[in-house]
């Protein structure tokens, strides 16, 4: 078995509302192995970004971790001292954020922004850090790398800025790179370039990657394993090929069915999942997906299904569904 790099257990995240705290992330369990790329998929508001932000204590105001643990290299990320936390941020775990337009400091030259992690983690001098920053720009494929060190973010295109963000995330060669929807704000051709870039860098640097997205088609060619999140819980966790070949959770099936296909009849309507996800704090007592699920039975509305390997299926393919895990057993 490969080495576990990160293991998140029973993570719960709450938000303060006028009606009191509401649970947004409700007992998430997931893990990342060394050298692995994990795709985290789910629709907006399912808690995928918050889960990752909480690991480095970057949650916005009024949102906080209410329980759980996150083992990373022998310590619990959620219990780090401020000093250890600072060393982990950017040093052992790199972060790439969603919107490169707002995630870079608009009044700071990108060379300085790239140098910061090097100065604070590697103790580099300004001059050394600047030299390394130039190399990083070349690494992430920015033409005329060194010449761009003195540019301000607004002088670069969106794709270039996201490359700079990735450069910042990689600066200290972290063991884990967390990419939070890094391509959402970019157009399709740039998306493909960024995906290829991360794939290539992962191979060269041998790091693990967590890639958060709502785009199943995008993650298909990138991830080794995929976690599907729904309403703050993991509903399916499987190696990528197994997930696409035989999705087990009704929600995953719905997601896959809603990907548009080339060559379908022009009049064919895209499949969609009826209803909307439950609001935080108003989740149904049983399976959170039950109200929208065509297969739902009585037990689904009463008992929360646990994430478990499917009987008769691969051990790595786990699903949180009363019905489909049983159906496979029968078949």
């Amino acid at each position, binding site marked *: 078995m490969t080495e576990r790099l990160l293991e998140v257990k029973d993570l719960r995240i709450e938000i303060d509302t006028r009606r009191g705290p509401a649970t947004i992330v409700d007992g998430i369990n997931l893990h990342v192995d060394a050298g692995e790329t994990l795709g985290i998929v789910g629709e907006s508001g399912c808690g995928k970004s918050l889960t990752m932000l909480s690991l*480095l204590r*970057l949650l*916005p*105001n009024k949102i906080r971790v209410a329980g759980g643990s996150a083992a990373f290299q022998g310590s619990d990320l959620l219990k780090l001292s401020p000093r250890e936390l*600072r*060393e*982990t*941020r*950017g*040093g052992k775990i790199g*972060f790439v*954020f969603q*919107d490169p337009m*707002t*995630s*870079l*400091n*608009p*009044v*700071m030259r990108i060379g300085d922004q790239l140098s*910061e*992690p090097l100065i*604070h*983690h590697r103790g580099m001098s300004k001059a050394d850090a600047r030299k390394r920053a130039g190399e990083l720009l070349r690494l992430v494929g920015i033409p005329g790398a060194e010449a761009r060190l003195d540019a*301000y973010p*607004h*002088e670069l295109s969106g794709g270039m800025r996201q490359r700079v*963000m990735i450069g*910042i995330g990689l*600066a200290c060669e972290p063991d884990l790179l967390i990419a939070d929807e890094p391509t959402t704000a970019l157009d399709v051709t740039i998306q493909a370039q960024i995906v290829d870039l991360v794939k290539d860098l992962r191979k060269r640097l041998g790091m693990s990657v967590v890639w958060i997205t709502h785009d199943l088609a995008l993650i298909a060619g990138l991830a080794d394993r995929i976690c599907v999140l729904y309403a703050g819980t993991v509903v399916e966790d499987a190696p990528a090929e197994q997930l696409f070949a035989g999705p087990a959770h009704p929600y995953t099936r719905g997601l896959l069915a809603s990907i548009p296909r080339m060559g379908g009849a022009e009049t064919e309507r895209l499949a969609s999942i009826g209803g909307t996800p439950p609001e935080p704090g108003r989740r149904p007592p049983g399976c959170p997906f039950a109200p929208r699920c065509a297969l739902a039975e009585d037990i689904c509305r009463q008992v929360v299904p646990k994430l478990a390997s499917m009987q008769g299926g691969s051990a790595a393919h786990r699903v949180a569904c009363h019905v489909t895990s049983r159906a496979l057993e029968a078949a």
Partner: protein
Amino acid sequence: MRIEAIRESAGLTKPFLEQFLNYVLNLLQGNFGNSLSSGRKVWSMISAAAPVSFQLGLCAIILTALIAIPLGLIAGLNQNSKLDYTILGSALFLWAIPPYVAGPLLMVGFLLVLPGINMPYGWGGIFDAKIILPLIVLSFQPIALIVRQTRAAVIEVLSEDFVRTARAKGVPETLVALKHILRPVLTPVVTQLGLIMITIVNGAIFVELVFGLPGLGRLTVQALTNSDYPVILAITLIGSFLVMFSNLIVDVLYPLLDPRAADSMKGR
């Protein structure tokens, strides 16, 4: 007869347009005319008073910046804490005291508590200890204003994505505050400080009267009570010129503070 003679010599018998043209032509040559009450040249009166006001304004602004910006930063970073409420409450308290109350009160207080001290009255240059009290009074309301503005701007910048990025990079909190948060906050705050300085230079009427400072404020009051029109006109003109000039300075400085503005000016 005498009145007629004065009318004649002041050119008041000429048509209005001609009088105005003469005034403007004189202005262009730097001649503001003579004071009606003292007969002195208006320009020499103003050039004696303006440096006093200018030094007062500059020092008050420096004092304000040194006190208010750090306090505003601390309050903003600790939003809704006891520290924040204390700073904000003190600022509100200062804001509520008008200079014509603060000036005499502080003066009396000083004299009663520290009887040995000299009467803080009159002008002995900007390095004279007498200047401290008027500077404090002048800074009361600007400090309150800048504390609140800095705090609000810090809270706004705190929620920006790039602050999160800086933290995710592992930048120490103090440096996040100084390098990433303070910089964007300073742009609007510096602009505001400049505008406050202009209002002080234009005449801090009450403070100058209370502390006997021979600045533009006192000159204004004297001119108004004597209906000394040439002086009033000159002060008004110079005041409006100062405001325009300071706006120009702010516009010129802006690209230095914000590189995005520099590019939009170049038309990129």
